[in-house]
């Protein structure tokens, strides 16, 4: 069994305890709720788009250290990105945590994606993959329509 500290790296513990962008955006252009029926975790992702660019992104909710840290890190790397870039980051991250074939990302996106590396420890714990991806699924739902609740099951 791998060392638990590979799952709970310092950066995860830090973001889990002190999540960044943990707030509501009052007039979001897009938002969606994420819900994991397995554990009851909830997250709401708020987006403020300026054309195709993400001007602001924030989240609220309650969850485990991993889902909270994943949402927090997500909001940090998405600010200033385009919608397409956000989707490319999600696709690549999703592949990395589910053991798929991650597509190569162009610089500087690849560098941003590297910031998600501490979350890929969930690969070894299948039950926890959804914790790492819940906020991203909510992001995708927000981009698609908004206001919907996306479930991980």
């Amino acid at each position, binding site marked *: 069994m791998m060392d*638990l500290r590979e799952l*709970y790296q310092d950066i995860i*513990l830090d973001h*889990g305890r002190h999540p960044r962008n943990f707030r509501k955006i009052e007039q979001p252009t897009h938002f969606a709720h994420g819900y994991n029926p397995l*554990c*009851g975790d909830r997250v709401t992702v708020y987006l403020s788009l300026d054309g195709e660019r993400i001007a602001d992104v924030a989240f609220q909710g309650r969850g485990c*250290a991993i889902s909270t840290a994943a949402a927090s890190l997500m909001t940090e790397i998405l600010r200033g990105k385009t919608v397409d870039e956000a989707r490319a980051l999600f696709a690549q991250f999703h592949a990395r945590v589910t053991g798929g074939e991650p597509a190569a990302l162009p610089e500087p996106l690849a560098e941003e994606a590297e910031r998600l590396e501490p979350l890929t420890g969930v690969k070894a714990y299948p039950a926890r993959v959804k914790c790492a991806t819940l906020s991203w699924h909510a992001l995708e739902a927000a981009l698609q329509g908004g206001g919907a609740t996306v479930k991980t099951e």
Partner: protein
Amino acid sequence: MTTASLRSVYPGPGGFDPRQLRREFPIFGNNPGLVFLDSGASAQKPASVIDRVAEYYRTDYANVHRGVYRLSARSTELYEEAREKVRAFLNAADSREIVFVRNTTEAINLVAQSWGPAFLKSGDEVLISVLEHHSNIVPWQLLRDRIGIKLVVTPLDATGGVDLAAFEARLSPRTRLVAITHVANATGAVVPVETIVQLAHQRGAKVIIDGSQAAPRLPVDVQALGCDFYALTGHKVYGPTGIGALYGRYDLLAAMPPWQGGGEMILHVTFDKTEYQHPPHRFEGGTPNIAGAIGLGAAVDFVEELGRDNILDHEEALTGYGVDRLSRIPGLRMLDAGQRRLGILSFDLEGVHPHDVAQVLDQHHVAVRAGHHCAQPLMEWFGLSGTTRASLGVYNDEHDVDRLAEAIEAAREMFCR
């Protein structure tokens, strides 16, 4: 060494030594160091149960009922013998009052779908408690949506037990059924079901008891309780998965229509009309889980051999030790469980999500469950999204609880620095 001597070398509070008893459970030999504290979800199986199922398939297997040949007759006999064992296990008056089902969920659904529409009409009330598992909530919601009954929920008192005064106040002239747990799966609260049955019967309401968590831990006597239905699942009483039992008073079962049509449950079929079997076979359409029933019979033997009063003593002593030990951990709050808690240690660790707790515990080879325990309304009652739950079995001892406590302290160390 015989099992009897193994069990009595260093007797614990139940008159048996859990550490020695563990040798009868192959899972522990195959998973050295495992601290298994998830029996509330499903108990491990003694070799006697595993071997009995295998032996049945090897030597006595054939489909039951109607077979003319000897093997089928023997198989039928074993299947019906298992029913008799479950009858004795619940002290039912007659083995025809025992219907084999897949699990507690199916037992409750059987009553909701057969007894419900036959005896309830729009506006009638089914009374449940806040403590219920989803399997004792959703079947009644389905029935509500189908025939317009009213689902009434009785609250808890300040200690986390069923508030009996509030319960009595909610028994109305329209209350036809009380559906309530015997031991709450998410908190371990023991419900005073004797009193519940008395109060309900005084008002003419029937009572179904969810015995999932109680059957492995308490002596259950359905005649003494006076309940109308009692549901249990085999895999929590050290038996196989996919088998459970519904006890129903014979006059009630006899008045209930079938709920699933098929083979085994009929007396005579023409295209115009079908005459149904009498209980319990009326409710056992199709080839049943024969091996499961026989395995459950072996599990009942195992439990009876240990002694149900002994198991109760063991579980009570260990529950007390657990509450005492865990309560000393800073930031840990046991979920309130009323006046009497049995076999379940459900807690909130301040600042640490239950899934993170369970993850660290797993690293320490301590198996527990985390989340809402299929009791989301109860979690909401306590203002929590979930808890971490350790649940006890006959193979657990104080050392297991100590290992649990040490692992929880490690989780605190990691997340609460």
